[in-house]
């Protein structure tokens, strides 16, 4: 990944909170390379504020994932198919 390559180059110094923040999404996806993953976790273990922020970020994603909305009622599919048949038949008649 270009972003990771760039950041890996920059990260010869210790990770700062801001660096850890940039990596939050990749960390939750398990997409960090092993070395950066270890540095990320090392920082979070030592930094209570980053630890709390990570926890809030993770909870935000979990809460969002619970925000489900109902599927359409089954009759909608039949109504949609009827709509399509009507319009496509009309289209064919128009073309003919």
């Amino acid at each position: 990944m270009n972003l990771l390559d760039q950041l890996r180059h920059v990260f010869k110094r210790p990770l700062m909170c801001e660096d850890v923040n940039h990596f939050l999404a990749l960390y939750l996806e398990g997409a960090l390379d092993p070395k950066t993953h270890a540095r990320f976790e090392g920082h979070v273990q030592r930094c209570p504020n980053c630890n709390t922020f990570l926890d809030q970020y993770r909870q935000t994603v979990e809460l969002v994932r619970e925000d489900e909305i109902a599927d359409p009622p089954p009759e909608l599919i039949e109504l949609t198919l009827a709509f399509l048949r009507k319009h496509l038949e009309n289209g064919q008649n128009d073309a003919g």
Partner: protein
Amino acid sequence: MKQPSPEKTETGADGREIDVEAVLRGDHAAFEQLVRQESPRLFRLILRFVRDDEEARNVMQETFLQAFKRLHTFRRESKLTTWLYAIGINQARAAVRKKRRYTTLEEQDIERLQPAFAQGMYVDRYEAWNPQQVAERSERSRLVHEAIEQLPDTYRTVVVLRDLEGLSTAEAAAVLEISEGAVRVRLHRARQALRALLDKYFR
């Protein structure tokens, strides 16, 4: 019965195979199968934009009609379902633009809701959350739902595609015709904005 070869099919939202070749040939039965498989997810995506059941139904029907008429324009640069979702989202956006009934946050609000840093460290101190303290699950759900609804379209779409519908970064990028990097940035900023919006309720 002859099975379609794997490269000529793809897996739909319900996990079943879609016979892409047959759909592209204009086979009505294959297209009907696509409608049956993809309607639930497409309806949810559209409803997130238009926020009205009746309108979502109309937009979904129009989306399938447009998709059928435009099958010849499908370039196989993405999955067929990805292409279908893109049409749906564009139709939904057009419907919302006509009405303009809802106000959402602006880009500068999203910026304001990002954490601030000084010398690489957070400016603010964060307190642990306990969402369970909002005792009623329905109340928690309402607060989260309203926070998502406040996001501007460009951010809400990414949250819906990635966190709610479970599309990959690559798929979301293809639907929105933006780079994978842009999807990642928008998702991160959207989640941070949501975190900030929910903070006052869950501390």
